[in-house]
């Protein structure tokens, strides 16, 4: 196995003492392309936030390869689309890792913004106001921003939600292109067919890891059933998880099995 880009060490992430990602161990290889799959509430987005450093682990941690740059694309709903900005303003945010707060945007930078827009098929959209973009166009603009960030590790959280098939194909092509450039990419995806066709690695989550490895081996019917059975709701009276006790997972499974929908 090549060098790890990310190493999860007993990673537990969550909110209000309730874990959303529970004791995750493992490594993401440099240059790998991984789909993160799981039901709603299974901790996919939380894991992404944890890797991006937006959420402090409750336990354990994420070890990143030294010096890597991360680009994180959250779910679309978290952006204020009524903000008075043009497409070029939105995409230029991607220059932040390069120029920071005060660095001037050079002619080269502006040319790069243009190239990024071209790469996602939005050439000529520079001056359009972002509230006039369709869902697919907006997502392309965000991909252009990711492109501009020139990151070693790219995290995409449900980038294909409410996107039509043609755009999905084009975005997938971009992702594969990034991966071909040696970048590590992790994508939260719901469409299993899409995963099987395009992602070599899959991490199947149900709060904890259900399966992680080659997509064909991870997405077996047996694993899918186990992933589907997990109990999404928090329980206020759930027993406290003891760190050293590695049998803790079974209690969750028991809950899930009893109330499987």
């Amino acid at each position: 196995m090549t060098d790890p880009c990310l190493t999860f060490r007993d990673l537990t992430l969550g909110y209000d003492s309730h874990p959303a990602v529970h004791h995750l161990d493992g490594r993401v290889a440099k240059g790998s392309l991984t789909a993160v799959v799981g039901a709603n509430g299974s901790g996919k987005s939380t894991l992404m936030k944890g890797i991006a450093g937006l959420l402090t682990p409750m336990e354990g941690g994420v070890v990143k390869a030294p010096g890597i740059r991360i680009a994180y694309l959250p779910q679309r709903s978290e952006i204020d689309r009524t903000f008075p900005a043009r497409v070029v303003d939105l995409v230029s945010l991607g220059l932040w890792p390069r120029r920071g707060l005060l660095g001037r945007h050079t002619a080269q930078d502006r040319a790069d913004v243009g190239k990024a827009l071209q790469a996602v098929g939005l050439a000529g959209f520079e001056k359009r106001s972002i509230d006039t973009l369709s869902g697919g166009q907006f997502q392309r603009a965000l991909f252009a921003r990711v492109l501009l960030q020139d990151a070693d590790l790219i995290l995409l959280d449900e980038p294909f939600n409410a996107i039509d098939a043609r755009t999905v194909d084009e975005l997938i092509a971009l992702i594969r292109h990034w991966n071909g450039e040696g970048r590590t990419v992790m994508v939260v995806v719901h469409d299993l067919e899409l995963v099987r066709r395009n992602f070599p690695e899959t991490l199947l989550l149900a709060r904890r890891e259900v399966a992680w490895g080659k997509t064909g081996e991870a997405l077996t019917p047996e694993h899918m059933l186990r992933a589907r059975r997990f109990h999404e709701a928090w329980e206020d009276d759930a027993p406290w998880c003891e760190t050293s006790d590695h049998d803790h997972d079974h209690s969750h499974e028991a809950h899930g099995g009893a109330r499987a929908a």
Partner: protein
Amino acid sequence: MIDLLYVVLIAPFADFAFMQRALFGSLLLSLGACPVGVFLMLRRMSLSGDAMAHGILPGAAAGFLFFGLEILPMTIGGLIAGAIVALGAGAVSRFTVQREDASMAAFYLISLALGVLLVSMRGSSVDLMHVLFGTVLALDNEALALIGGIVAVTLVVLFVFWRALVAECLDPLFLRSVSRLGTPAHFIFLGLVVLNLVGGFQALGTLLSVGLMMLPAASARFWTSRVEPMCVLAVLIGFASCLSGLLLSYHAALPSGPAIILSAGVVYFVSIMFGTRGALRARAIRHRHRIA
């Protein structure tokens, strides 16, 4: 005709030093407060600005309680109280489940009650009116210097943190993922809001100073869809409102603070109706469209 224009527009300022100082002070205020107001609006924190303005009151009132109607103690008191409200409410919304609007409302109601109570302990209802609605015609050199300093600080900070402020409004999660500036930018911005409200408090009072911040910004929103022109336009609207408000108050013997804010209010209503992104225009262009 020229004479008439002179008498109406120029003479009040040429003849009276207090009018000059009022004009100079209020124009300065617009220069700082209006761009801050634009960001306040874009962050959907317009009402928070109102809340913070009330938050200044108990501090200013405490200054009044101990030192009388002196600008420096009241300003410092206002600054401290405003900072406490802004930081407190900001912290509550950042670190707990409660949204900013709720925490702001809680902090400001408490502040308002406390402020009115404090002023009433020593002063008359006239003093209370001064604190609540300001006295732009009584700006002395000390007050002007204070406003000038606040405006200078505001413009420098806006210039330096511009990119972070825009990113924090547009896509806060993105900013947090590429930089640690998100939270500091938020609090620096809240600091600017308090600073400008305190600057405006002497001229327009704690209740109205937020008007010069919000109304021009809200009006400018109807005319442009980019941040930079919006800030410039807001400042210009602020200038016009101050000028017209002061003239109105001079000729019609109206209280000057409300006259300024009402002038801005007129611009606001005109913008709603006739702005390029306003109500009438939106109806007018519905009937015409391009083929692609």
